[in-house]
């Protein structure tokens, strides 16, 4: 392309719009479903229930250690589909671009979208590009919607947790939000931290294979582990007891949290999941999770209880107890 910046005309629907699609998006993302460039994609129907989800991505900064807005836009939607036990299949991709945005950055982001889509084995089958005038958006916003095929026999839901069930977490928490925060605020103590942004569908597939009775899976994004557990306790009308010493938090993340007075239990993650399963399946499930590259640091962090329904309690490091409430007030905006 001759231009190096996005112009309003790139969103006009005319020649420049076509150039953008033909030269920038299609070469990377093309597949038989997208190729006709009709107003809608025709996708092959499967028998059985379909999972459908959507999410918008407004993260700032657009590029960060461990990922960028493109990777996030694919992984976030893939993970939402995966959490209900669906096999992610097709994504839509809509970009809202601010006039003047560097074309080279779009190229970088499209490459990363492609890489993540390949990793997650999903196809981008339809899309849209809009350009808004300078000041009307902050660089780039992305929306992706996703369709997945629900595996027969699975019924994962936040309403299914039962007293006695074990709670498993797939690794270190807090990395994503702390990475975004330290980049944005210009902290000089990044350390080895990077976003954990990753597609979880392969991990989920292996987990469901050994433990078809998993009751519920959730990815603790905004609001963090504490908020997600509260949602499950509330929907399933059960209590949850978590062991603080079992929750995996990276040393560097703990350090930043100590300095800034943040609680890792409330920080957003983009490549972690919580699974709730019957007690007899927990050890086997943990082993499978630990054998997967995205779950090497998995741990059983607590259990579901009959006591204190709809509440999450934390057994603290020194043996005390406290209630773990939902996140109140905004922690930080635009982390995903």
């Amino acid at each position, binding site marked *: 392309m001759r231009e190096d910046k996005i112009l309003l005309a790139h969103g006009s629907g005319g020649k420049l719009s076509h150039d953008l699609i033909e030269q920038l998006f299609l070469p990377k993302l093309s597949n038989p479903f997208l190729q006709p460039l009709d107003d809608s994609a025709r996708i092959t129907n499967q028998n059985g229930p379909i999972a459908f989800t959507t999410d918008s991505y407004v993260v700032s900064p657009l590029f960060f250690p461990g990922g960028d807005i493109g990777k996030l836009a694919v992984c976030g939607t893939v993970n939402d589909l995966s959490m209900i036990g669906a096999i992610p299949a097709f994504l839509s991709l809509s970009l809202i671009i601010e006039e003047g945005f560097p074309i080279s950055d779009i190229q970088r982001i499209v490459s990363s979208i492609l890489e993540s889509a390949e990793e997650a084995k999903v196809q981008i089958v339809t899309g849209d590009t809009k350009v808004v005038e300078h000041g009307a958006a902050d660089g780039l916003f992305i929306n992706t919607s996703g369709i997945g095929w629900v595996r027969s026999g699975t019924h994962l839901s936040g309403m299914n947790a039962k007293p006695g069930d074990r709670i498993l977490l797939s690794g270190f928490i807090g990395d994503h939000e702390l990475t975004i925060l330290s980049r944005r*605020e210009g902290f000089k103590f990044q350390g080895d931290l990077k976003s954990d942004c990753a597609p979880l569908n392969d991990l989920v597939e292996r987990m469901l294979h050994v433990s078809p009775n998993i009751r519920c899976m959730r990815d603790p994004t905004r609001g963090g582990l504490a908020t997600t557990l509260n949602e499950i306790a509330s929907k399933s009308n059960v209590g949850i007891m978590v062991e603080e010493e079992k929750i995996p938090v990276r040393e560097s993340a703990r350090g930043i949290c100590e300095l800034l007075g943040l609680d890792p239990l409330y920080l957003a993650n983009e490549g972690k999941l919580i699974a709730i399963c019957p007690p007899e399946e927990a050890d086997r499930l943990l082993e499978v999770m630990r054998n997967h590259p995205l779950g090497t640091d998995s741990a059983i962090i607590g259990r579901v209880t009959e006591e204190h329904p709809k509440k999450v309690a934390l057994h603290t*490091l020194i043996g005390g107890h*406290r209630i773990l409430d939902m996140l109140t007030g905004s922690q930080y905006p635009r982390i995903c």
Partner: protein
Amino acid sequence: MKFIDEFRDKELAKGILKNIEKTSKRPVQLMEVCGTHTVSIFRYGIRGLLPEQVKLLSGPGCPVCVTPNQDIDLAIALSRQKDMIIVTFGDMMRVPGSTSSLQKEKAEGRDIRIIYSSLEALTIAREHPDKRVVFFAIGFETTSPTIAVAILRTKEEEIKNLFFLNSQKRIPPALYALLQSKKLNVDGFILPGHVSAILGTRPYQFIAKEFDKPAVITGFEPLDILQGIWMLIKQIEENRAVIDIQYGRIVHENGNPLAMQKIEEVFVHDHAQWRGLGSIPDSGYRFRESFKTLDAGHFDIEVEPPREHPECLCGEVLQGIKTPLECRLFRVVCHPENPIGPCMVSIEGTCHTYFKFY
């Protein structure tokens, strides 16, 4: 994590708790003066681990919470001036003044920025020579030396567009006022670790000598707090009253003379208005003559008359006379998303801590 995990050890905690149980013979009420202690106590579930007869009360040690409405209103009025940048520490953004907050003003387009270190104010002033920058300076003795250094540097470097709205407070005079008011039923004080790292033990001697109450300067990790409580109970049971140091790894008896000297260079003690406690002699600072030109309090602007919600109990909560649970607004209309009083704003505010952990 080194130097942290050691102070969160479950077995050691059990040991100290056993000692507390063995030592404690009569019911006691202890006040943790500092908000950081309150958070730690709730975060680790310390109240539930203590024997029934050992009660903890939260005190006035949250700098955001004790900032009176009129100071916030003044900062808000300043932010509305043309070509003005207000800089302050994070929690001040959300504290409601009489009719607005700095956060609301920011949403209206005023230039209000959060800083993490006092010296950042100088950087911002240098970067914007065409604007006036006002540092809304709050804090106790822990923060004051850094603010004093920022003021000294501003003068040395002849930065002409940086001013300071001083709302800093001193802890010992507030404790004096609390003890003198006799409304408070407290048997001993858990004194703030970091404030005391600057002050040492001398400024607190009146607690033991004049009011016959024991006090222990305590660190913020759970084992620190448990040990501080044990040391207090021992004093009470032995009918002693001295100012003891548990947080010996940070606090020296003489404090930090260099830090105190920096404060002295810039400020003299003066009465100050505390939210909930009223005006307390010697509990704040005013600029020395030679630094008066840097005082943003002298700007000629109109400020609305201060107003507070008539049912807000922050004042009583700050004095340890009432708990947030006794406030009619608590959880009903006052919550972290819509704080009515400052104690619900700060992460160290008693109401916020109760809301989150209780």
